């Protein structure tokens, strides 16, 4: 039977078991929206700005491991998605973005709402396609899902000219796919894995350093098993939080620019690093020369060879999927596998570092942001999905909410995109309709996608917005305070809206919380009495609170500024 290109698009989504799409209509995708209208298997969430559609699809994926899907029109619809696509790309999030394009016979003529989608998105996608023939449509969409989800995941854009969505064609969805140019490695090299196990045996000051790859590969359980067998300390990157239970004794906290004293010291003074799905980011190792001063052996498991030896020279590269490689390592650790007895001394040293209690903070008469995070953790029993925007509040959430499970911490690490928090909450709720979702944000960030309060009303997304309102672009102000002699250039936000009224105007519940003693009751109220409402909680916090520890730009990982130094 012949069906239209638009119907093919929808059938492909059905075949991929996509149950929801985030999008916004327009001229070039009208046929597709019409096909969408005629079925009810694929739900559509109408956002208020295309950027939010992509962020929501991204969070759908982050929180569920399924591929998120967004659908937008040509021209401005596409350009509005670029921030969202780049955000997903930097964090290796699998996603398919379907974009309308002007009819193929108009391409290149500066037609109404034409833009070079493939060109504009090329540097921030894993791959992209322009469909030129309706006969290629199904195969192209199949390829898009395959590429997005396999190997090192990432966003894939499929640009579909309007005439192609009108043309008729037989539909057949390919069962499997073979691409001679794309065959990601899954299994690690056994010889290398054996070498790694030998090094783990010899390690005296080991550290397991893990990142987003553990989450993406759903390997949290295996990581925990391995770490327990080894009794080595574990640190996570910002993207790796939840990949190892934060309440476990072996967890030394996040490392890096705002990592704990113990994590950064343990990383720096280690003699063996087992790096798993982490890419030695500049916010993680600090000054590379300083980091390189200590002699150590590095084992690096990553599915992307280009992540290995990119910033830090690796001794044992293992290219493969974390889950598969950890399996192999565990298999090789037979009954009489023993680690070096010196590790006990290393633990003594680590516990000494730990006793500095580098996340300690002092209460003031104002609400401290750290305190709000601790209370949020208590009130939600550590079970919430926490989405975050970008800034100080993001770091406080990462430091003080102890994630025991993967895919609960949803934030933009690589691109650091302000504005993701609220649409991320929407994406999480589409994947987990009954979950508790807290969006930790700042008065700066929340205003970058505030229009989504309307979407949340339409679909009844009961997100709890935790606005850590310091009246400042706090993270910028912190740098200016510390490195620009307190010249607060453009980091003070005036003329803030009354967020309570704003929330109410959108039909939600608003709360303003100004005293420390009101923090917990307000949170409890929001999560119980207002369980099914979106609650905008405007916490007026200490405007001077800073994030510590901090490794200043260009400094070594151990050259941290601690709160106690000030």
């Amino acid at each position: 039977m012949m069906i239209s290109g638009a119907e093919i698009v929808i059938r492909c989504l059905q075949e991929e078991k996509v149950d929801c799409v985030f999008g916004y209509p327009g001229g070039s995708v009208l046929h597709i929206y019409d096909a969408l209208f005629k079925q009810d298997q694929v739900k559509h969430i109408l956002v208020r700005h295309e950027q939010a559609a992509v962020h929501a699809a991204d969070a759908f994926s982050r929180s569920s491991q399924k591929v998120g899907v967004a659908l937008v029109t040509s021209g401005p619809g596409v350009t509005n998605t670029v921030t969202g696509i780049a955000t997903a790309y930097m964090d290796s999030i699998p996603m398919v973005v379907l974009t309308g394009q002007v009819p193929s016979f108009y391409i290149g003529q500066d037609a109404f709402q034409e833009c070079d989608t493939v060109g504009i998105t090329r540097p921030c996608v894993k791959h992209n396609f322009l469909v030129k023939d309706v006969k290629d449509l199904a195969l192209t969409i199949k390829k898009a899902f395959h590429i997005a989800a396999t190997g090192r995941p990432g966003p894939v854009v499929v640009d579909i000219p309007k005439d192609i969505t009108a043309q008729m064609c037989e539909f057949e969805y390919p069962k499997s796919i073979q691409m001679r140019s794309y065959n990601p490695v899954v299994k690690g090299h056994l010889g290398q894995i054996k070498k790694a196990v030998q090094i783990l045996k010899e390690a005296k000051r080991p550290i397991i350093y893990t990142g987003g790859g553990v989450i993406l590969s759903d390997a949290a359980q295996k990581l925990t098993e391995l770490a327990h067998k080894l009794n080595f300390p574990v640190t996570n990157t910002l993207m790796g939080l939840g990949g190892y239970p934060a309440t476990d004794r072996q967890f030394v906290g996040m490392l890096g620019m705002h990592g704990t004293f113990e994590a950064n010291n343990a990383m720096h003074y280690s003699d063996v690093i087992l790096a798993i799905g982490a890419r030695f980011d500049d916010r993680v190792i600090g000054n590379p020369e300083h980091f390189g001063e200590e002699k150590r052996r590095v084992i690096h498991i990553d599915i992307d060879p280009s992540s290995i030896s990119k910033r830090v020279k690796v001794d044992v590269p293992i290219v493969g999927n974390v889950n598969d490689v950890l399996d192999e390592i565990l298999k090789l650790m037979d009954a009489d596998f023993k680690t070096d007895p010196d590790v006990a001394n290393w633990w003594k040293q680590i516990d000494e570092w730990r006793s500095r209690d580098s996340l300690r903070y002092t209460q003031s008469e104002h609400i401290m942001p750290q305190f709000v995070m601790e209370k949020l953790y208590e009130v939600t029993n550590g079970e919430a999905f926490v989405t975050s925007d970008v800034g100080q509040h993001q770091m406080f959430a990462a430091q003080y909410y102890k994630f025991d499970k993967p895919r609960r911490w949803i934030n933009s690490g690589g691109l650091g995109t302000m504005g993701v928090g609220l649409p991320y909450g929407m994406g999480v709720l589409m994947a987990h309709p009954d979950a508790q979702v807290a969006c930790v944000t700042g008065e700066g960030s929340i205003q970058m996608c505030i229009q989504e309060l309307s979407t949340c009303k339409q679909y009844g997304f009961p997100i709890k917005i935790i606005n850590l309102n310091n009246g400042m672009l706090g993270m910028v102000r912190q740098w200016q305070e510390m490195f620009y002699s307190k010249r607060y250039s453009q980091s003070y936000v005036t003329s803030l809206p009354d967020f309570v009224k704003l929330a109410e105007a959108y039909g939600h519940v608003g709360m303003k919380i100004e005293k420390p003693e009101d923090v917990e009751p307000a949170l409890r109220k929001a999560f119980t009495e207002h369980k099914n409402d979106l609650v905008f909680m405007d916490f007026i916090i200490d405007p001077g609170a800073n994030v510590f520890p901090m490794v200043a730009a260009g400094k070594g990982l151990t050259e941290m500024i601690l709160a106690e130094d000030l």
Partner: protein
Amino acid sequence: MRHIISILIENESGALSRVAGLFSARGYNIESLTVAPTEDPSLSRMTILTSGSDEVLEQITKQLNKLIDVVKVVDLSEAAHVERELMLIKVRATGKDREEMKRMADIFRGRIIDVTEATYVIELTGAGAKLDSFIAGIDAGLILETVRTGVCGIGRGDRILKV
């Protein structure tokens, strides 16, 4: 260090811009780039002349391999290979220069492929350095136009780049 990277890539529209975009986005340099379909029209062969430290070259090959359309990548300069470049050079050829140009072309095993009263077009192939020395060897004032293809290369003997 100078390196010649050979790439087999799906002959899709936009493939070239993916490679060129990768080089510019990551700050790798391209000294020359040539591309054309192979005996299998679904595949193109690209040759890129670049330079960089061992670390940079390692990243270049890894990043190229990451491109979805790229089927294979080799660094030709890692082992025995031959390389050639084609140059067409238009020179003023009048009076005593006419004879001199002909002589130089002969010395470099070039061919004169277009002749007018006042000009020659000389075709030269060889390693880039040979073309450079031809240019250096003639009076710069007589050069009207040069066009070079950039390096293309192939491994010697059993070194074969094929799907």
